[in-house]
């Protein structure tokens, strides 16, 4: 009788301990995604009127960058254009002196280690040469602190640069960035909703027309 009780009790203990709820096992793909935005609090987004969005995506793979345009990339570019124009900004060609420059980037890190988001901006000139914006020889400047994210798998980032004040300061300042991580982010059908999520966090991105 006693042995039976001990066996039964042990079985109950093992069953309960085995029922631990695994946190990541109860997330849908949408629930795994995080959207992070950061901005220069001194920037007045209402004073910018025009923008140019690079028409290809920088693929940053283990620290090395190439340019590409897949269907998914195009979906992200289309979404950024859509929400910038909804906020009142006018898209112009690169040689028409846009106030803002935007880039979309895919970031991968598959080798051992991780991309620290701080390093990402240290090497930004290697992904988007300032010459691209017509400011050969300029450097990029990040005027605000941001959380250090270690990207060990993949992420999509969107970066907004102040071109209007570049020649006056001899540097191209980052005024806003958005980061998307999680499952299914490299899926064209998710692009619009994910870019919308970044803009929903950024009510201050709007111009006065």
């Amino acid at each position, binding site marked *: 009788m006693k042995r039976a009780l001990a066996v039964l009790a042990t079985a109950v203990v093992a069953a309960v301990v085995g029922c631990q709820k695994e946190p990541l096992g109860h997330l849908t793909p949408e629930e795994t995604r995080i*959207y992070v935005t950061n901005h220069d609090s001194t920037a007045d987004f209402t004073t910018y009127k025009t923008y140019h969005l690079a028409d290809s995506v920088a693929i940053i793979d283990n620290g090395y960058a190439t340019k590409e345009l897949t269907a998914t990339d195009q979906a992200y570019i289309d979404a950024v254009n859509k929400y910038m124009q909804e906020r009142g900004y006018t898209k112009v060609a690169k040689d028409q002196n846009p106030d803002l420059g935007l880039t979309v980037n895919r970031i991968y890190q598959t080798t051992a280690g991780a991309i620290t988001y701080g390093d990402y901006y240290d090497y930004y000139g290697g992904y988007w040469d300032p010459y691209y914006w017509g400011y050969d020889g300029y450097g990029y400047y990040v005027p605000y602190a941001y959380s250090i994210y270690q990207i060990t798998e993949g992420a999509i980032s969107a970066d907004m640069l102040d071109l209007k004040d570049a020649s006056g300061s001899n540097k191209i300042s980052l005024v806003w960035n958005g980061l998307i991580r999680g499952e299914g982010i490299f899926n064209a059908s998710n692009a619009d909703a994910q870019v919308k999520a970044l803009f929903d966090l950024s009510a201050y991105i709007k111009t006065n027309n």
Partner: protein
Amino acid sequence: MLALLMIITSVSANAQQKGILKLDLNYNYSIPSGAFKNDIISNASPRGVTGALMYGINNKWSAGLQFGYQDYYQKYPRAIYKTGNNEETSAVLTNSVQTLPLIAKATFKPLGGTSSFVQPYISAGAGISMIDFKQYLGAFGSSATSGSFTAQAGAGIMVPFSKGGASGFSLGADYNYVSYNKFDYSNMNNLSLRAGIHFPLR
């Protein structure tokens, strides 16, 4: 003769606890309270067990060690969190907490040594809980493991399987004070409801 047998039987039942080491195993249902409920996990946890090795000092008092395991989990709807000075994050927040308490405990049965079939008890104890706390924003998380001071007060009943038997059912409730001073949290207090069996170890 019959009276003598009854005396022997009652003496045997009354003497069941003294000098006997018992194991008490229970299913445990835990309800967070206070700051634990307000800030970390508001859902009750049905995933827990407690056990206690109790030595009968006399018919009324016993002392020993209680150990346990409890798993808490809560997933919050997507919300916006300020994660930096000018940084905001939209995410589904998940908190997952596992606790393993180890408590030195004493139990008092006011009717111990009498012929009462149902034996109520009160208990008190103090010890330490190992706490593993994981928090996720989406699929991205961090974890911290630490030990926390734990104090406990409880009450319940013990009912033998048969009159005078040393094995039986246990039902009880404990209030646990669990100190937790990390990440601006203050405690993980909870009310535990438990049901199980107890039996002597020989």
